[in-house]
């Protein structure tokens, strides 16, 4: 099965906006997208949470528990900088298991709160549903 990564226009705009204020931070996200797009086995295994220190560049994948509890298959993908620290920005990615398609839904800062009921959390869930990704029981 081939796996795909799709970038939502809203996420595209968020990264573009970041590039206007912090070029290097946006480039770290672009590099993460490039890395995921380049290697099929990485996409194939992306939804298996855990550290990915073995990849160049290294990144981490974690379940977004608050979303998972609502049946939404959403993961946080964080890029690990060469000095070992995590990059300030990360991608929130939804996974459509039946199609093998990942959707970059939202760009978020490391201090971003994923508080249930918050505007950004609701926005994230809306984007997930608009992609047609199933809600899992």
């Amino acid at each position: 099965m081939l796996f795909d990564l799709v970038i939502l226009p809203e996420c595209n705009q968020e990264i573009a906006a970041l590039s206007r204020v912090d070029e290097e931070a946006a480039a770290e996200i672009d590099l993460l997208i490039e890395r995921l797009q380049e290697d099929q086995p990485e996409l194939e295994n992306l939804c298996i949470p855990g550290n990915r220190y073995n990849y160049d560049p290294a990144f981490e994948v974690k379940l977004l528990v608050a979303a998972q509890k609502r049946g939404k298959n959403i993961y946080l993908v964080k890029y690990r900088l060469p000095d070992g620290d995590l990059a300030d920005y990360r991608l929130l990615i939804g996974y459509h298991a039946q199609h093998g398609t990942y959707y970059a839904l939202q760009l978020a800062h490391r201090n971003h709160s994923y508080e249930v009921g918050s505007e950004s959390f609701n926005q994230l869930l809306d984007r997930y549903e608009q992609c047609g990704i199933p809600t899992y029981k």
Partner: protein
Amino acid sequence: MQVCTMFHSLPALQAGQLAAADYLAQVEADPRRAAALARARVRAGRVNAAATQTLSQLRLSAGLSQAQLAERLGTQQPNIARWERDPRNMNVETIHRFAAALGVPPDAVFKASSVGYGA
């Protein structure tokens, strides 16, 4: 692979959605963002002085994506991914061509190919 392709059905992209490859082409078309991405690759390719760079780190240190290196080598991006994943697939000629395309001594690529992917 042909069979997998037959059974793979990418859902139609909605308005404004971009496949990652097209998104990255958009980034590369912007000189400012392309330069920033190249700098990010170089930073990602750095290792400690005592460590040996992997093949992917050598490529990143040159500021190149797999697609860009593939173009320099006259091959396809999946081949670069395959070699970086398992450098044992590389013959001597390929190693020398890799080194020339990256502007590094062949010895650097020989060492990287012995480190392997994910070391």
